[in-house]
């Protein structure tokens, strides 16, 4: 909302100068792609579909047995409470091995991978995550038998709100 003074104003001359510099940097980026591209990719963001494909290939995810508990409206995208629960069994032969958590709109959609063991007793994990914008939150659970279970929940991220 508020504008703060950030050094000298952008005059036409400095703009042309900085544009030139940026252009030079762009050329440099072309010349040495491995050095520059990872950082750019991190800011621009990965696609959630690519991430899922890389991790799970074409394996089938059954959308059941998993519940995501998250607010409908998150007042601050930097702190979104999230609880992932599942009614899948947690015994020595058959248990939830890993909980993967994703936020679609984030620059890095894969937020956390949590490895559980039968000693947990119940498949549940709660945390607070950052979300860049309104998007879906996904959880995909891997069981020790190799099945995948998942759930999707949309979360609205509002910024601005009331009372500065």
């Amino acid at each position, binding site marked *: 909302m508020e504008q703060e003074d950030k050094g000298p104003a952008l005059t036409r001359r400095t703009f042309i100068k900085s544009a030139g510099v940026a252009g030079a940097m762009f050329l440099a980026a072309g010349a040495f792609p491995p050095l520059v591209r990872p950082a750019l990719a991190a800011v621009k963001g990965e696609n959630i579909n690519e991430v899922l494909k890389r991790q799970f290939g074409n394996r089938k995810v059954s959308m059941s047995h998993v519940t995501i508990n998250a607010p409908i409206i998150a007042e601050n995208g930097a702190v979104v409470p999230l*609880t992932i629960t599942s009614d899948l069994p947690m015994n020595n032969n058959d248990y939830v091995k890993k909980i993967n958590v994703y936020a679609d709109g984030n620059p890095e959609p894969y937020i956390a991978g949590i490895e559980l063991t039968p000693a947990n007793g119940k498949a549940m994990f709660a945390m607070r995550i950052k979300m860049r914008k309104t998007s879906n939150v996904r959880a995909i659970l891997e069981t020790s038998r190799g099945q995948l279970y998942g759930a999707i929940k949309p979360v609205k991220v509002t910024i601005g709100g009331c009372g500065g």
Partner: protein
Amino acid sequence: MVVGRIKIRVPGTIRKGEVIPVMALVSHPMDTGLIKNKAGQIIPAYYINDVDIFYGNERVTHCDWSYGISANPFISFYLKADKTAPLKIVYKDNKGGVYQQSVQITPR
């Protein structure tokens, strides 16, 4: 704020074999490395990327985190309290910091 203060919360009375909820909070800035400060410089990435939870000698849970976890990370999970042993939570961040704390779990 002091980085790496840890608070672990477990129920007061625990029965043997009961599945108890455990909550933990740690103070950490969790900087993403994507945000600039007021002077226009990028704040370098500084976040916890690895959490290990031990119950006795056994590693119960392991978390692999990106910077997408909020500042002052909070976690909550269940634990089957079937032995008298310490519950230890170890946080490691990307700058080599290691923070840990343990609580004794004594089921009756």
